[in-house]
């Protein structure tokens, strides 16, 4: 370990965080544009050409907004909750590789921040932590909608986390490693989504529920709970929740791409490793498009049905899938 190494990590960390926050800003624009197109509208087009400055304008507006704290709220927790929500979202993608390694300024740089041998476990752990912020936000607001929204969110997220966990175990079994770099590399012959479509489906559904996206956007169901757990939040604190939600969208797209869709792998990536990030970017953009498309298309599932679906269908199915995969791989020797 040397100073240059630490400097590289620092630069890569800053770069990753900038990419995620910048990505968040433009995913909001991307979503609004795609939604508008699906809904026969034009979408934001006033701030800059094609509305590219819209996220900037939104951000500046939010900075200068008054922040309200409800009178009987627990002020400390109320302030901490959005921070607690955004931190896991920012760090979860640290273990996702963008490519193998490239040579830049005569130095070989690995295109990932950390390649740890328990990467999948890390993903699950960070996912679990991200529930705290939402639960605490709902509880500390002293607001009925927020409390109900926070409880709903907590129950929903932990329920679907089980299915999510089991779905993520499948690529681990296929690759025989928990490192995401190994998992991506072992998809060299064939992407796992073609071998394990069921696992990918379970992963995708559970991940949508995990980040409270439509049709599982129950906790913030506008129609009944106004805005759910972040009802009382305004200004930049609200922006943090918003940011966390969109960064999580990017994160599950990146993780899903890496676990099932071959990550940074694509044609000629072995000869030209710099293509890796580009392939990952394209895959993420496609997954994001599907997420937005679903939002534009489907009505919301009712909460009780959602919970029953998670516990009675998705969880047993994911468990069975893991076990059957194990049996087949051992007996057939995959």
């Amino acid at each position, binding site marked *: 370990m040397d100073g240059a190494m630490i400097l590289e990590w620092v630069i890569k960390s800053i770069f990753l965080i900038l990419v995620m926050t910048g990505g968040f800003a433009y995913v909001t624009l991307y979503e609004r544009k795609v*939604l508008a197109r*699906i*809904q*026969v*509208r034009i979408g934001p087009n006033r701030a800059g050409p094609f509305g590219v400055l819209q996220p900037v304008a939104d951000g500046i507006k939010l900075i200068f907004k008054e922040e309200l704290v409800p009178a009987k709220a627990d002020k400390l927790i109320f302030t901490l909750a959005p921070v607690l929500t955004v931190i896991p979202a920012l760090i979860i993608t640290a273990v996702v590789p963008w490519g193998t390694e490239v040579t830049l300024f005569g130095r070989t740089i690995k295109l990932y921040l950390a390649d740890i041998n328990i990467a999948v476990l890390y993903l699950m752990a960070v996912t679990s932590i991200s529930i705290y912020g939402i639960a605490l936000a709902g509880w500390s607001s002293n607001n*009925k*909608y927020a409390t109900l929204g926070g409880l709903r969110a907590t129950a929903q997220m932990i329920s679907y986390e089980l299915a999510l966990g089991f779905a993520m175990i499948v690529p681990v079994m296929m690759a025989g490693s928990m490192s995401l770099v190994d998992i991506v590399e072992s998809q060299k012959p064939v992407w796992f989504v073609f071998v394990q479509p069921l696992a990918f489906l379970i992963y995708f559904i559970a991940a949508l529920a995990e980040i409270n996206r*439509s*049709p599982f*956007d129950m906790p913030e*169901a*506008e*129609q*009944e709970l*106004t805005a759910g757990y972040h009802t009382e939040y305004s200004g930049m604190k609200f922006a943090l929740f918003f940011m966390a939600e969109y960064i999580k969208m990017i994160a599950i797209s990146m993780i899903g791409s890496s676990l099932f869709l071959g990550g940074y792998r694509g044609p000629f990536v072995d000869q030209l490793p710099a293509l890796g990030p580009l392939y990952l970017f394209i895959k993420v953009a496609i997954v994001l498009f599907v997420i937005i498309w679903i*939002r*534009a*298309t*489907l*009505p*919301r*599932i*009712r*909460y*009780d*049905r959602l919970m029953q679906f998670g516990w009675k269908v998705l969880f047993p199915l994911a468990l069975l899938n893991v076990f059957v995969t194990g049996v087949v791989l051992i007996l057939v020797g995959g």
Partner: protein
Amino acid sequence: MSVEKPVVSLADLCSRYEGLLVPDERQGFEGYLISPDHLISFCRSLRDDVGYDYLSSVTGVDNFPAEQMEVVYHFYRTTGGPSFNLKLQVSRHNPVVPSLVPLYPGADFQEREAWDLLGIRFEGHPDLRRIMMWEGFEGFPLRKDWREPFFEDEAKPFKSRWPDGQVIRSEDQNPYKNNVRYPNDFDPEQWTPVGDDALYKGMLNLSQNIQSEFKTDQIVVNLGPQHPSTHGVFRMVVVLEGETVLSLKPVMGYLHRNHEKIGERNTFLQNMPFTDRLDYISSMSNNFGYALAVEKLMGIRPPERAEYIRVMMAELTRFLNHIFSIGFLLNDLGAFFTPALYAIEERELILDVFEAVSGSRMMCNYFRFGGVARDLPDGVLEKIKELVNDRLPRKLEEFERYLTKNDLVRIRCEGVGVLSPEEAIALSAAGPILRASGVPYDVRRADPYSIYDRFDFDVAYGLHGDIYDRYLVRVEEMRQSLRILKQVVRDIPEGPIMSGKPQYQARVPPGEAYGRVEGPKGELGFYVVSNGKPNPWRYHVRAPSFINLTSLATMAKNQKIADVVAILGSIDIVLGEVDR
């Protein structure tokens, strides 16, 4: 649904009450007068023996010169036929009449409204509170001797407005607060709703007797008035246990502008554009109902071509209202605006037609007494033909393909918010709500007005009375509307569009009339009383959105909180009409 033959004929019942039931013999009036003591027993026989099971409208008339307060009931049979009008006359100083809520629960909101605005006390009403005005309000605004803060003159046109050819506004002469009357020691800045605590406690007590294994706090939650999914400033007070609704009470009046009082100040013709503002989604239907009522009073009928144009506009309105409401029902189910915007696309095409004929897209003001305002401009009929024969059926088909078999829609809608046929009739539900519950009652068929008896169409009805059936009924009604429209554009004759000369001042002889149409949201009725002056003496709107809300509490009981929003969406209310 009582299809059985009535046990007693109406004439028999009337003769049984000989002496107690007096025919209303005033010039231009019809129906019977009864004394308050016999109202309940008479109405019970009327409902059970004669089959008048549907109480359409309850309202009051302030008979100021005669020092009387009159309560007017309009009964119908759900098997069809004309109305039976019943009236009560009580002293104006202490008007007390028995409540009909025990017999016809649908009278609930209407009696509360009559109490609120006219001060008629209904003995035996379970929950006689103000419904439109706020709890701290003093006085009864629809009484003829009540004057609003900016009072100028008893009737329009106001002489004070243009004394020397220059406009003078009463607001300028009379600054704010100098003429607003408050109860004693009342400070509007510090006022908090007084009735709310009692309302919440009452609702909690009602639902306290439900036992469960684990003790959970029951929560009183307000959905609205400032809520994204109540379609406006409408409020539902909900008692929740977990996610389940134990009881619900609608609270309304946030958009109340005393439509009827303003209508009584207006001249007859000035009310025509004013009806646009009731259900602003379907202003053409509102025009239709009001025009029918006044024409009944005047004893005129519009010429053929005008009748066809009227039906055409009314059916186009029905189509646009239903497609709009389905779009927004999907929104209430959590679909993110896509179905709603697709619906709006079709609606805009119909609004183009409205703009071409009336000059306005939403506030059409198109009907006149004895006809319509203008003839169809060149090319509009072709455009309507193209819409009716090609575009709208195609798009309706597309909507059906996306929604009718959609699993998520069916899961969310089937078996939710069920209203049985008996409940629907008793609660005076109207329109698609009533028909989805299995009562094929459509004013166009049951009591045909205008030229609806000439057209071939089926009355759509459902069997289960849930949200899904209401959706299906709306889809089927759109299809039937297109069917009627096809016949209209085929048969429409040439000719005049007004009977007689267009008048700025309609001469309306004294009398009363109840004009009702099958509006897109249900039975829309206008009860108009004239005393021969240029302004209506009484102008009452039987608003379907308002009366359909009576059944909301029944539908929402023991449903999930998420479904309440969908149920409200399936009733299809417009707050402009609810609060008036």
